[in-house]
């Protein structure tokens, strides 16, 4: 008798399960989003720096310009900004650049002397979008540089791994 009850229960269960299967069907589609690497940097400002004064008995005074900014967006991790100039500075003349770290990410390397080789100015930048980091340029010259005519340098900033 117990076996009969079990069989009847199994029959009812099978019918119930099959009834559910009768009344449903499934369709699907795919959603795909390809997030590509974004590493964008844009610099504003064309500073003019003139070394023209000195305290008697000392080297000429360094001049500073802090009106430039850089805008950075990256969705990557541990990026860095490097800076370089297109041609070397004259002897006894030094051009430095100081770039502030974007808000909440990265470490400024302070004021870095610019050469024709790329130098790190900010490191450890991850997942950031900031248009406000300040760029400061500092120009200095020793008396040995003598009197120089106006010259120009192009500073290249690169956001990379």
């Amino acid at each position, binding site marked *: 008798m117990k*076996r*009969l009850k079990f*069989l*009847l229960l*199994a*029959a009812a269960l*099978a*019918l119930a399960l*099959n009834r559910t*299967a*009768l*009344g*449903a*069907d*499934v*369709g*699907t*589609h*795919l*959603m*795909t*989003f*390809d*997030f*590509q*690497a*974004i590493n*964008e*940097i*844009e610099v504003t400002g064309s500073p003019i720096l003139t070394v023209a004064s000195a305290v008697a008995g000392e080297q000429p005074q360094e001049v500073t310009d802090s009106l430039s900014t850089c*805008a*950075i*967006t*990256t*969705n*990557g*991790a541990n990026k860095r900004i490097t800076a370089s100039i297109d041609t070397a500075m004259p002897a006894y003349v030094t051009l430095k650049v100081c770039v502030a770290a974007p808000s909440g990410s990265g470490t400024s390397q302070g004021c870095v002397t610019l050469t024709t080789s790329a130098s790190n100015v900010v490191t450890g930048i991850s*997942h*950031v*979008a*900031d*248009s*406000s980091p300040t760029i400061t340029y500092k120009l200095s010259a020793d008396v040995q540089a003598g009197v120089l005519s106006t010259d120009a340098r192009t500073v290249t900033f690169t956001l990379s791994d």
Partner: protein
Amino acid sequence: MRFSIRTFIIFLLAPLFFVPKTAYADISITVIGNWSETIDKNDLLSGAGSDLQSTYTSASGQVSIDIRGTKGINDAWRIDIRKVDNNWSNNLHPYVMRTSDGKGGRVSGGTSYQEVTDINTPFFSGSGMVKGINIQLRLTGASIQIRPSSYSTVLYYTVVDIQ
């Protein structure tokens, strides 16, 4: 006598286990279309220094749904929806919205954006056979906080015969 009852029940049940379900399925759903987007620097809100736009919306008829095999115009059904992630970010939120009634039977509900989660949730309902119900898709939550990769999820539309 006991033997004959047991034999009878076994013979009764056997076909239910061995006949394919599709042979019985009287209501069916066909989903046509996929959606893919490439998100790159052109999607920045205002170039370098700005974030990505957070929301992306597909064409209004990105996906089309057909319901077939109903037993007449009054045979009611409901569409439930859920997602199953392949590679996905918890920051990303997919939404669906019905943008047309299609042709044939009756359709109601689902005309505002509804987030698709991992749990089956009623989307819209209707009755009778309907062809060409258009669905628009939306993604929110995109930002530069999401690391570069290809993210995909599969949306499951289940039609349930409710009458």
